[in-house]
């Protein structure tokens, strides 16, 4: 069944049809939420809220791209979560023990432990860099450079103009570059910016 038919069925209240859409988009939606929030639990909450709101509001969906529509919802949900986090900052205990008890070092048996550590360090530093950006620039950067979305898709998902997408992306990239340059010692040597030029 194609996406349009699934949306049409879901608009009439067919939950199975909507759940097929959830299966198709849940990874993308969750990853956007996670990169914006930098917190697994909050990202899960934002993702669940987004699909719930999406199903409730589906009768109001007037065509277009379901992907950008659901991404718009999840960015709003992520923003709500972010405001909650700012009002009530918490340090979940799960995060403290997760890396020790649920290490993903064994997820890829062929990967050398050093490579895994470097990859984790890189992810952690990039996540830190993303958190240092203003929310609007972070959303655009995540959608463009991590999720690989086009300018047009980002403009549609964030309800801003193409020019604003370009300027936010430009400023976001520049800030992230400056952050990585400032914390270059934390980057694994092979990932350092402009390493070969020095």
């Amino acid at each position, binding site marked *: 069944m194609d996406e349009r038919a699934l949306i049409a069925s879901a608009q009439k*209240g067919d939950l199975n049809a909507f759940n097929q859409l959830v299966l198709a988009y849940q990874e993308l939606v969750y990853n956007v939420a996670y990169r914006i929030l930098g917190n697994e639990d909050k990202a899960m909450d934002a993702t669940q809220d987004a699909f*719930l*709101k999406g199903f409730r509001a589906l009768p109001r969906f007037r065509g277009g791209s379901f992907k950008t529509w659901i991404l718009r*919802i999840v960015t709003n949900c992520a923003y709500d979560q972010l405001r909650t986090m700012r009002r009530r900052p918490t340090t979940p205990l799960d995060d403290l023990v997760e890396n020790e008890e649920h290490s993903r070092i064994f997820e890829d048996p062929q990967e050398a432990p050093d490579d895994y550590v470097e990859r984790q360090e*890189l*992810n952690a530093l990039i996540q830190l860099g993303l958190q240092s950006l203003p929310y609007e620039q972070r959303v655009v*950067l995540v959608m463009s450079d991590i999720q690989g979305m086009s300018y047009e898709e980002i403009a549609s998902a964030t309800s801003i103009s193409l020019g604003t997408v370009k300027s936010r992306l*430009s400023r976001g990239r*520049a800030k992230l*570059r400056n952050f990585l340059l400032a914390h270059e010692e934390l980057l694994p040597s092979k990932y350092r910016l402009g390493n070969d030029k020095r």
Partner: protein
Amino acid sequence: MGASDLKFFFEHRFTQKHLSTYLDGRLSPRARRRVERHLAVCPKCARELETLRATVELLHRVEPQALPRSFLLPASVVEEQKRYRRLDATYSFLQGATVAVALLLIFFISGDVLLSMGFLPMGSSSPALESKALSPQEAPALPQLVRAPESSLVSTPTVLSTAAEPKAIVPIRNAQGAESLPSPPTTVRGGSSPLPKTFGARPAAGEAVSLSEELTEARSISPSPVHTLPSTPMARALPTMLITSPPPTAQALRVESPPSLIEASREETLPFWKLWGLLRLTALVLSGLLLMLLGTLLWIGQRRRL
């Protein structure tokens, strides 16, 4: 700073601004050539481009997070969707109602403003008032209004005052010098001294004076005494009634004092003030309703927000 330096400065700023878009290959051919020309001569920009490219490549390397769990929705949300569908319908209805109330409010406020500025025709001689004054239901309110015989000389001017002001009843002397008490007023057909009809919004002060003069003149020729009538619409309409009595003879009666006539003119402005107050009251009620509707819309809008 020379011209070449100035040009370099502007090109440098342009390139810095568009490096990110250039990296994505989304610049126009002309802008792209301009950036490339500058990159060839500016090592700082070239280095920034390289670091920017490296940053974007790093971001591309970020691996997707594995899903911690499935986000499939439970069956209970189907009822929620139905509830939200009803909420949407309510929201649409309230939107329409808000627009309607806002338009009504604008209409009433405009009416109020126009009335205050005198653009709307209002006054004792308005057709509505006349028809009201002559309605059969109100005729019994003036049992004394009788038709005098044709032989009567003069028309009886109307003297208007409220029933609550009995002091307005003033005995006056007739032509023979005899003082008489109030008696029912009479209207007489015939004659050619019609009282002025007033058109327009509010009777102006000058109008009121003119009416007073006319009434005074008419009264001066009247042999009948001046009377007080109850304050009814009929009474207010009386000055506009056609009086067809013969031309007045001079030195008829002592002239009635003007205050009662001024009250008469004040009586004529009452419909204007009543309508004005009604407009204000309606606008006030509509404003309250509009505020309530906007509040409800805001509340529902928050619940509907994606």
